[in-house]
């Protein structure tokens, strides 16, 4: 048999570079890509975030008149041609375009030139709760209407949850690690955890990590039928108001966020700008029920403790709080469990108050957290007027707050009970 030696030379070396002490790499965040309801690109996003601009508006694009809820945080019209080759745009559905655009934005932000990289050592790790929910729905409706012969192969191949990740790999020739996670509200945090761990062990140089979700009509219907949407069955006003006494469910949002994670050596070698360091990830499960959050806070407390090796340096928590009675209280309990007295002093903010809640929100929130560490400023929680005494934390309400942050935690918690915390530190060279 002919052996193609050239390919062997090109084969990535996945052997840990320091096999006897694999856990020696420091991992840094060098690029941010944001496609959000409050801005496309990190600049607009960050400016609006600090001003407390809400992405929440009456739903457009489908009829919600038969629902109790009216609101959503939808993306603006986006000219995807600015990010994706027109020939490739045709085979992508909307969420595919959104995620690929966020990868493009992150790449441009970091100055990473993939032509200069060993493509086998560049990876992508994506989280999405429901991926192409709209495409799946279109496919199913065509099946109902026209029978199996009406089923369109083009729709099916983009309907699989990993299509969004494949689009990115194909678009940019990313040949290393490639994985897609789908576990409700902790999907993207898992994607970042996996990327972080592989980089730490030296099994890749650079990994695009994060992901997102779209707000589609079938998804809105499902959330409504499961009773998740504000205002629920109550009489209160509809809206996101994390930690507020009158919080009554979520407002759905959409978007995608990507952070570029890379080993410090690699980032230094190419002279990359470093936003922050990723220094830990903690995962734990709660088992209170299929649709229940960790309302007692034990599991979220455990995930924070596992993530942050030095809890005494944590100055800010980007909260998972999503304006549901259970999660906001559970997270508050968890913070007080982990930090004791200091639990009431540490600054807490929920970016979901502006972005709405969606499974893949963690990518965008991670971009926000990296910017907080970089600039020393914490975005506000909006919509919260009457803080719940049971959530007696130092919530940054209404106005952004300047603060030097040594380290910070990004929390996520899924209904059903997968709780993941990530620990980011301000980058210091030594």
């Amino acid at each position, binding site marked *: *048999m002919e*052996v193609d030696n050239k*390919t062997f030379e090109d*084969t*990535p070396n*996945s*052997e840990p570079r320091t096999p*006897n002490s*694999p856990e020696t790499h420091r991992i840094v965040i060098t690029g941010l890509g944001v496609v959000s309801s409050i801005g496309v690109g990190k600049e607009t996003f960050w400016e609006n975030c600090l001003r407390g601009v809400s992405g929440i508006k009456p739903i457009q694009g489908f009829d919600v008149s038969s629902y109790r809820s009216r609101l959503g945080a939808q993306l603006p019209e986006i000219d995807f041609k600015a990010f994706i080759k027109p020939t490739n745009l045709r085979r992508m559905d909307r969420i595919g375009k959104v995620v690929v655009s966020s990868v493009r934005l992150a790449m441009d932000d970091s100055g990473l030139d993939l032509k200069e990289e060993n493509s*086998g050592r560049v990876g992508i790790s994506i989280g*999405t*709760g429901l991926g192409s929910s709209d495409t799946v729905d279109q496919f*199913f409706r065509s*099946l*109902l209407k026209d029978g199996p*012969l009406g*089923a*369109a*192969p083009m729709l*099916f*191949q*983009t*309907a*699989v*949850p*990993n299509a969004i*990740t*494949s*689009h990115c790999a*194909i678009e*940019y020739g*990313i*040949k290393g*690690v*490639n*994985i897609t996670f*789908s*576990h409700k509200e*902790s*999907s993207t945090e*898992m994607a970042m955890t*996996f990327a972080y*761990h592989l980089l730490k062990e030296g*099994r890749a140089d650079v990994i695009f990590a994060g992901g997102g979700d779209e707000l589609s009509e079938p998804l809105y*219907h*499902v959330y409504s039928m*499961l009773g998740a949407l504000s205002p629920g069955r109550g009489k209160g006003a509809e809206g996101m108001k994390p930690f507020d006494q009158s919080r009554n469910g979520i407002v759905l949002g959409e978007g995608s966020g990507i952070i570029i994670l890379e080993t410090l050596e690699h980032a230094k070698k190419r002279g990359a700008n470093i936003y922050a360091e990723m220094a830990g*990830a*903690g*995962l*734990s*499960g709660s*088992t209170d*029920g*299929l*649709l229940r959050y960790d309302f007692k806070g034990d599991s979220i407390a*455990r995930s924070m403790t*596992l993530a942050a090796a030095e809890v005494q340096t944590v100055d800010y928590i980007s909260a998972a709080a999503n304006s549901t009675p259970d999660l906001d209280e559970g997270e508050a309990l968890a913070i007080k469990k982990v930090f004791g007295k200091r639990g009431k002093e540490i600054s807490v903010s929920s970016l979901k108050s502006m972005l709405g809640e969606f499974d893949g929100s963690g990518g965008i929130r991670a971009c926000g957290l990296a910017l907080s560490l970089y600039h020393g400023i914490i975005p506000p929680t909006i919509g919260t007027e009457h803080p719940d005494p049971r959530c007696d934390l130092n919530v940054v309400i209404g106005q952004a707050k300047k603060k030097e942050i040594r380290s910070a935690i990004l929390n996520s918690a899924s209904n*059903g009970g*997968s709780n993941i915390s990530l620990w980011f530190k301000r980058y210091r060279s030594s």
Partner: protein
Amino acid sequence: MKKRVVITGLGVVSAVGNSLPEFWSSLIGGKDGTKEITVFDPSSYRTKIAAEVSGLDAEAHFSKKEIRRLSRCDQFGLIAFREAWRSARLDQNSHDKERVGVVLGAGSGGILSVEKYFRDYYQGSKKSSPSLLISYSLATTTDHIAVESGLKGPRTTTATVCSSSSASIGVAYEMIQMGLADVMVTGGSDSLCEVSYSGFNSLKLVDPENCKPFDKRRQGLVIGEGAGILIIEELEHALRRSAPIHAEFLGYGICADAYHLTAPEPNGEGVERVIRIALSHGGVSPEEVDTINAHGTATPFNDIAETRGIKRVFGERAKAIPISGIKSMVGHCLGSAGGIEAVATVMTLEAGIIPPTIHYEVPDPLCDLDYTPNQSIKKNVRVALSNSFAFGGNNVCLVFKKFSSEQ
């Protein structure tokens, strides 16, 4: 130092058996699980067959109330999980539930339930219960397992469809390496549904007769369903509680073709890379590999690309490595394919028997390896690979080794 990770429990639901012993005896006996579909009406489809799970008495496992809330996918997953859990003696030994997690792979998940709801909804009927929509998330089966048994360790779900439950085993392994868990429940579950059946049909990737991997007459896959669950465990933890050890999990590779949304890279370059990454991560040389559980979907392109990839890694020796294509018997179980095949691979190491590729009659000159045609063979195997490749060129390769207490 990497922690050593072993497999201490196995559970299966499949078209050829709803328990591990039944599954394994069917596999080595070359039994085909393909039959006419009953879970939905296939009469308007070009093909009418699938490797459907049959003879499973849900009421023997669940209460009536539970049955209403559990999708077919959840039921398979829970039944296979309970078998694996018992066989690992985790029901008897004490352990810290905060150190036991669950990572499953998903394909279409509980879409069969969601389809039922939306079929009624779109036809203007409100008779379907919204509780069917609990299955809308691919995380549902994973959460059911954790909630049922109070497992408070790390939990997530991989969603790369045809390679999901191989990827999940890799991710579960990392949870142990990260020090977040001692024991992980992993593998996957998936059930037939119309969306995936019609989807693969629309791509003309389904064989109307049966699944014939690597045979020249092959026309595509036969969709299957079921669950393959493995309990993986840090070695010291397993030894301390005297757990049964079936095999060792050495490592895995995961990478992308970055080539096409559905077709594999035709020269096997992606397959070669993923096997090399897996061998390197597992610390074994190509010479040590004794058998390969192929992805072997029986689509014209996959089987050629996989054969080429194997030859690129193993050179001349490729022809001396027996390969199994068990999708010929259990079908392509999508989200649970990797889990079910991992169970088969572990059993191959433990029993020293390599299951056959059935329906193999006409050799294809482009697929010229030893596919263990039609008859299982006895062979003492020490290192075995299990391949899984998904749409978009999402490749995973797992490396297992016969367990010996010495490294």
